[in-house]
């Protein structure tokens, strides 16, 4: 048995535009998803994340490339692949004419589970996801957070080997995001389900995923663990200071300080990119004193995946082209 639950090689998707010409949404991406891990698939909106997930989950035909799920080709046997995967779509695709409980039971029946197993598992998951007291309500009356939890419970009903989550926390308030992630991590730990997560919230994979890839314009720009990705950025710490006087001259002088790789004006403050995990604050304050400026505000930040993305692509994760 391979250590990878999913192996993707040179995956491509090209759309033929109506007026002629092609649009390459995914341009030959390759990566492996280790078994039993939470895997992050990151990129800004429009990077090709949803297109990729649609191909991985048999919902969209690939133009080229290979997808191996547990060693078996997804394109050759989409029916077999579907038995092993759970999919939580970005949009609400729950069955609105059915109650929450019926959503779970019908899903289980679609996956060939017996009526008895379907009922038992529905009870278990309604309880686990905190939906038991609303189980007989139609899902059209559900709030966004409840619908999201039900979607995840539904995708888990047939015990998939890998669960695809496409931007699962978009539009949820921070409270619900926390609850959701706690539940997801429990499932990952208890059932050993591999979780394939796409998101443009960088703090989520940073906390949850071990391996991740970053995509932009349909291509992979980086892959690795969080520390590996952060190592791509030459600095590890950013000190941001709001000074009483901020100009080019100060930036130039800042760059002559030891450990400061570069300095720039960022968001109305001076940002110093420092090649050390702990900046020497005594030295920094002596420096500002010597310049005769006062420090109105100071903050320290470790490099985040967002910074990695900015470093690699020249733009922010939530910033359009």
């Amino acid at each position, binding site marked *: 048995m391979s250590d990878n639950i999913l192996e993707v090689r040179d995956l491509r998707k090209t*759309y033929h535009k109506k007026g002629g010409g092609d649009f390459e*949404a995914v341009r030959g991406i390759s990566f492996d998803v280790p078994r039993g891990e939470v895997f992050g698939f990151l990129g800004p909106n429009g990077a090709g994340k*949803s*297109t990729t997930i*649609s191909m991985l*989950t*048999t*919902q*969209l*035909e690939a133009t080229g490339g290979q997808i191996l799920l547990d060693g078996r080709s997804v394109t050759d046997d989409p*029916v*077999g692949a*579907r*038995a092993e*995967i759970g*999919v939580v*779509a970005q*949009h*609400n*695709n*729950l*069955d*609105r*004419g*059915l109650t929450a409980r*019926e959503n779970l039971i*019908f*899903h289980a*029946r*679609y*996956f*060939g589970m017996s009526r008895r197993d379907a009922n038992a598992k529905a009870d278990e998951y309604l309880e686990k996801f905190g939906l038991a007291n609303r189980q007989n309500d139609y899902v059209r009356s559900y709030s966004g957070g409840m619908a999201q939890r039900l979607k995840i419970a*539904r995708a888990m009903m047939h015990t998939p080997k890998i669960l695809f989550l496409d931007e699962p926390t978009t539009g949820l308030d921070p409270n619900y995001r926390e609850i959701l992630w706690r539940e997801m991590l429990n499932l990952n730990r208890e059932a050993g389900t591999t979780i394939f997560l796409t998101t443009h919230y960088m703090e989520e994979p940073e906390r949850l995923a071990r391996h991740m890839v970053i995509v932009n314009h349909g291509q992979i720009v980086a892959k690795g663990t969080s520390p590996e990705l952060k190592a791509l950025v030459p600095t590890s710490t950013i000190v941001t200071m709001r000074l009483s006087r901020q100009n080019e001259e100060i930036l130039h002088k800042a760059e002559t300080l030891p450990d400061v790789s570069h300095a720039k004006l960022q968001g109305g403050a001076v940002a110093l990119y420092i090649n050390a995990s702990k900046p020497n604050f005594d030295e920094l304050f002596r420096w500002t004193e010597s310049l005769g400026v006062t420090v109105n505000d100071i903050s320290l930040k470790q490099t985040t995946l967002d910074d990695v993305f900015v470093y690699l692509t020249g733009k922010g994760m939530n910033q359009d082209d």
Partner: protein
Amino acid sequence: MTSEKDIRTQEATARERRVTRQVFLAMVQRDLLIQARDIWEFVFRVAMLPFILILTYGYVLPTLGVLPESFPSQMFAGMVGMSMLITGIHGTAVPFTMDFNNLHEIEDRLLAPVSSTVVALAKMLVGIIESFVGGLIVLPISLLFMGSRINVTMGLGDVPALIGILVLISLASATLGLLVGTIIKPTQIAAMFPGFLMPVVFLGAIFFSWQSLSAIPVLQAIVLVNPLVYANEALRAVMTPQIAHMPLVWSVAGLVAAIVLMGGFGFRRFHRMVVGAQK
């Protein structure tokens, strides 16, 4: 001698078949449950068109002397055919386009570990069942308003032929429903009635037999693309054979051709929608 491997393969195939059957039935059950929860909407949708047509053309106009007394017999077969076809088309096409486009509800079923054809077949079976209900609903309405004026001359021996024709009509309605469902968008449903169903109904040989259209040869040729013509002519041949009708072989051939053609196009479009379109 059968090897152990063969037995294992056979067992796997048998299990796959059992699962496919279960999934198919669960999908049909889901659609029927949703429909049953809206039973009055269903009854209203299915009964209203035959009711108003039978009331006007089968009762009011013959009673006023505008239409001949024999007219109800002329239109009876047509009412059954129309109701079956329209109900089946509606029952397949509308939920299909809604599930696919607006609500994405069908995604859960498309992710089931069965061929996506099973999803389409389940939708079609629901259309077929609704189509039969549509045909049955015509009977009490017809008896109420045109009872004494209908002259059905079929005998018991014709029942198997009638059942065969009803099955073909319901199949045609479901295949046409699948095709229409893959073509129209939810925003176009309102336009479907005047733009598509009305011409099918009024040029569907309900109020006149196809033979009598020989007075307008161009129209007689054009309406041959309308599957309702074959449906009604086949029913006329079995239920009211005293009225001029297309030879049964032709009308049955027309129905079969419609099923094959529309089914072929419908399934092709369906499969393209399933794996080709970016949502």
